[in-house]
């Protein structure tokens, strides 16, 4: 599948934003956050900013962005619609919460709003994952692991962001590093498992099935319908060489999991001083890592329709 930069930016930015929102809300509800509404506001604003950047990016990816409002209508069947609805719905408690924190009003609503925000974040990220996981046409996506991956990565990147923010404001509770580390570990385990899973599955569909000509023997493409790639080939036919894939996977492991994980370990070992720097380093590495991870998520995905264009299996 063609790795569109708008979609990569959307899923990674909004994923991190929802992760941040989730941990912030949970921590707040559990009373683990510093007693500074301003800091809380900044954290929620950053989450909303990332989410909004992602959503704008995904909207601009549309052919007809001016009609985007129509996308909220089909939540009964469409995960994309559900995601849109969930995203908008999540804006409400989280936005209100941010507003309350900004104006510094004490309210009994903040805890329920935080819980709603956390739930909304989880649901939205789950919906994002399900957009892909619901597509039977792409075996690398049609897996329960996909939403799990999305959730874990959103959690890990969100935790790093929260840790960084708190550290930057002079708070450096150890739990942020622990949560980040755990998030990274879970995400890493899921990702490696995901890779093993897709590598083990050679695809159950063949060009013989696609053309229905298997009873006559092996089917080999002779001439494509058009000399130059068409939309389907450009969109669905993107392929990355196996060697290249492995290199990029190692890069993901190093930058998305190993380096931030190591930073967190060091932070936990060394203690409080320099937490900002450790988080910053982790975030920079993880950003490179997650953009690569998301690029690979698309580039490694093989669409069944490519059977018609020369793929032997999908």
């Amino acid at each position, binding site marked *: 599948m063609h790795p569109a930069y708008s979609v990569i930016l959307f899923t990674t930015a909004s994923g991190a934003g929802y992760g941040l929102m989730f941990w912030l809300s949970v921590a707040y509800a559990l009373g683990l956050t510093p007693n500074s509404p301003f800091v809380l506001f900044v954290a929620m604003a950053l989450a909303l900013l990332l989410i909004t950047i992602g959503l704008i990016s995904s909207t601009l990816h549309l052919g007809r962005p001016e009609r985007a409002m129509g996308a909220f*209508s089909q939540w009964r069947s469409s995960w994309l619609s559900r995601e849109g609805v969930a995203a908008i719905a999540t804006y409400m408690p989280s936005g209100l919460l941010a507003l309350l924190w900004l104006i510094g009003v004490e309210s009994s609503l903040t805890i329920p709003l935080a819980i709603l925000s956390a739930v909304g974040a989880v649901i939205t990220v789950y919906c994002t994952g399900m957009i892909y996981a619901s597509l039977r046409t792409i075996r690398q996506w049609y897996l329960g692991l996909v939403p799990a991956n999305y959730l874990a990565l959103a959690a890990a990147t969100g935790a790093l962001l929260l840790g960084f923010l708190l550290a930057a404001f002079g708070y450096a509770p150890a739990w942020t590093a622990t949560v980040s580390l755990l998030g990274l570990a879970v995400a890493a385990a899921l990702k490696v498992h995901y890779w093993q899973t897709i590598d083990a599955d050679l695809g159950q569909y063949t060009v013989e099935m696609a053309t229905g000509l298997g009873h006559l023997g092996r089917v*080999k493409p*002779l*001439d494509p*319908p*058009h*000399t*130059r790639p068409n939309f389907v080939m450009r969109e669905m036919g993107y392929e990355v060489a196996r060697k290249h894939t492995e290199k990029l996977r190692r890069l993901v492991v190093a930058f998305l999991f190993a380096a931030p994980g190591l930073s967190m370990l060091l932070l936990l070992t060394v203690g409080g001083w320099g937490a900002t720097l450790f988080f910053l380093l982790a975030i920079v590495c993880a950003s490179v890592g997650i953009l690569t991870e998301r690029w690979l998520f698309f580039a490694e995905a093989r669409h069944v329709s490519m059977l018609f264009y020369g793929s032997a299996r999908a």
Partner: protein
Amino acid sequence: MSKQPAIDLNDPVGDRVAKTTCYMCACRCGINVHLRDGKVRYIEGNRDHPVNQGVLCGKGSAGIMQHYSPARLRVPMKRVGPRGSGEFEEISWEEALTTATDWLGEVRTNDPKRLAFFTGRDQSQSLTGLWAMQYGTPNFSAHGGFCSVNMAAGGLYTFGGAFWEFGDPDWELTKYFLLFGVAEDHASNPIKIGIGHLKGRGAKIVSVNPVRTGYNAVADEWVGIRPGTDGLFVGALIHELFQNQKIDLDYLVRYTNAPWLVIQHPGAADDGLFARGEDRDPIVFDKATGDFASAMSVETTPALTGARTLADGRTARPVFELMAERFLSDEYAPEAVASQTGVDAEQIRRIAAELAEVAFEQEIVLDQPWTDWAGRRHDKMIGRPVSMHAMRGVSAHSNGFQTCRMIHILQILLGSIDCPGGFRYKPPYPKQAPPWLLPQGALEDIRPREPLGGPHLGFPLGPQHLLLDGDKPSRIDKGFTWDAPMSAHGLMHMVINNAAKKDPYEIEVLFMYMANMAWNSSMNVPGTIDNLTAKDDDGQYVIPKIIYSDAYYSEMVPYADLILPDTTYLERWDCISLLDRPISTAELAADSIRHPVVKPDRDVRGFQEVLIDLGARLAMPAFTNEDGSPRYPGGYPDYMVNHERKPGIGPLAGWRGADGSKTGQGAPNPKQLERYLENGAFFAHELKPEQAYFKHANRDYLNWAVEMGFRVEPRPTIFQLYCEPVQAFRLAAEGHGTRQPPESHRERIRKHFDPLPFWYAPLEETMLDEGAYPLHAITQRPMHMYHSWGSQNAWLRQITAANRLYIHRSLGAKIGVVDDDWVWLQSHQGQVKCQVRLMDGVNPDTVWTWNAIGKRRGAWGLSDDSPEANQGFLLNHLISELLPEGGGGYRYSNSDPITGQAAWFDLRVAIKKADGAHETEPLFEPTGTGGLAPSPDKIAYGAEFKRSGR
């Protein structure tokens, strides 16, 4: 659930429908052009039309993009830069026509033969030929010489017909169809419709073609023959039929010259000619009377066998015997031909057996009485439901004439010509065999400002009809000379080469129409470009003046000095006439017109309009009134209605007579074109059921054909298994007669001019080291591009914007290449770099590519980085227009020695893997763009038709 949106299901297609004739190829289907707000909304096939019966091919349905192409020429131009630069200055039509008139007038006054007027894919040859006759130059033909003259001449000399425009398989009744050398053909939709019918009925289709694409893909059996060996394959089939006595003797006696007696008189001037009676009719031996009788007499029992002694003591034998001996010889035994053809002997045997089985055991009987030419009534029509079709793969070889003859003879031996289930003639065919039409244009007949005595092209019956003055050819293409004595369509492919060499003489003006000679219509493209730009010592071009008419900025345009921009096919009048290339079917005599369905948005004129105008300006008798005024002031439509070839016979056969009540012959009808338009732009006369078959010998048909002016007299067409005119040329080569070939040509003529068809190896390979060029290279026509005059069509070029060289998987493994790797393909002429694609369905010794996909940078409104120019390639660069130098230092044209048909399928090549830059070679310099505006980078055609509330 929300409600389904309301859709306008009844949106009218357009505001007007105009019925006209397609011109996306030479097939000439009827089309309904739907127009909305003056723009073309949709083009579909005309259901009433005899050619396409409502369907439309991939090209026809892409006509919109041809019509609105950005490569359309916009205005007359004169060249200002050097030839090839594409630098032109726009001029007015008046200046263009004045210039042309000056150039042409001067030549016509001084020496008319110094005009060479050749038209390419011309569908108005009765007009262009008339114009050339009126001008008085001997130098005229269309592109048949490099297209399919072997097929036409081979058939016409044999049985007064051929395939395509001449006749079709009986698609409704045939049970066994043998297709030779056709991936796609002129008769695009009729063949497709026919194949659909065959498939629907479960008839068997056997395809003989080195490549399994197109029609060959749907064949029940594919014979992946080695190129140029079809004659061996067919010869072996005939061998098997003779061997197993599976031939229709009745049919041979009745309709062919099988019983005619051939003089056996080795060394004498009459050897191999027919024994003739006092009335000059050939004679047969009548077993009933035990005496000789006229071959034309019906009251005989002619012997097919037995040598006879003629009254004067000479010996004579029937054609049948000679033919049987030829094909029963071991040379044509299946085992003998298997290795050369690449076809297994058992497969040949089986196919021969199947042909015989279907022809004789599954005969068709129609309860349709008919009367033969001698007045005998027959209760039924007996059919041999075997049919064949062949085209370029057979005819574009230097042994094509004889191979075509062999295919027709195979049909004749099976008794399947114009019978139910067999081959069917299309009116005005059959003609006499050979046709009664001699070539005109001998040097002594060429006089300043005087028309020629008759049409240029014809069918010589012997050396006496060659257009030679001593050894000096009359025609610039050396047609009807010893180089190609029976060149019935001329040799357009030799014109530029000969003119540049001033051989046989210099010309002053080269005038061409719709012929991309600087690119895909020439062999040896680099050589042709050199010839077009060659200069004398004084710095003047060797071909001093070139006038060219085309609708598009093709590769030829930059090489012309004066450009006469033609219209698109939707903007023009045209006349598809029974006088030249009709659209008849086996049951209908039909012709058709084109008419302007949209107005040109450019300053262009239909070429035929221009020709008629020039004819008047040059004061040609046929185009001028006695007072010197133009005879057809209304232009082409005026000519179509009012021109009379002979009294009562004009370009259009329908609705003649002052009141439109006459068909075929009748006075001009001023409302004739209105009648055509009312009828969907065509006219069709349906034959009566009793005329439907055996047209060569059917009295009702023959009488009607005389009435229509198709035939001079109602005598039957007798099939010429043995072709006497060919023997007449051979006798000259053997030293008889006053007109003999020069020594250099003697052996060539003697060998190839065999009155009985035979197979010989294609000439190029016999002159080459076969080890050095082990492979055959041929082209196939892509169905979606065939004859579509270029790649400017934005839809069609998406389908094929670059061609690959297709090679067999085993060859790919041998030279170590996979799909899309680059290879060098080398011939004795040059080399081309191209990309391969591996396949199974190709003869292992053959490589092939799609025809005419490669384009030159600058042409056709395409960008310089287009795939056509940078990955697309032509095999033409590899094909020499001349054969390698043989003994005596003479280089013959790379053509069939009999007809002069360009032998571009004879090409032999070697292949090797290529390294280096990934673009094709040779890569020619861009041609310049002829002042055309840059092509758009986006098309959203049809957005203007979008209506709200859909």
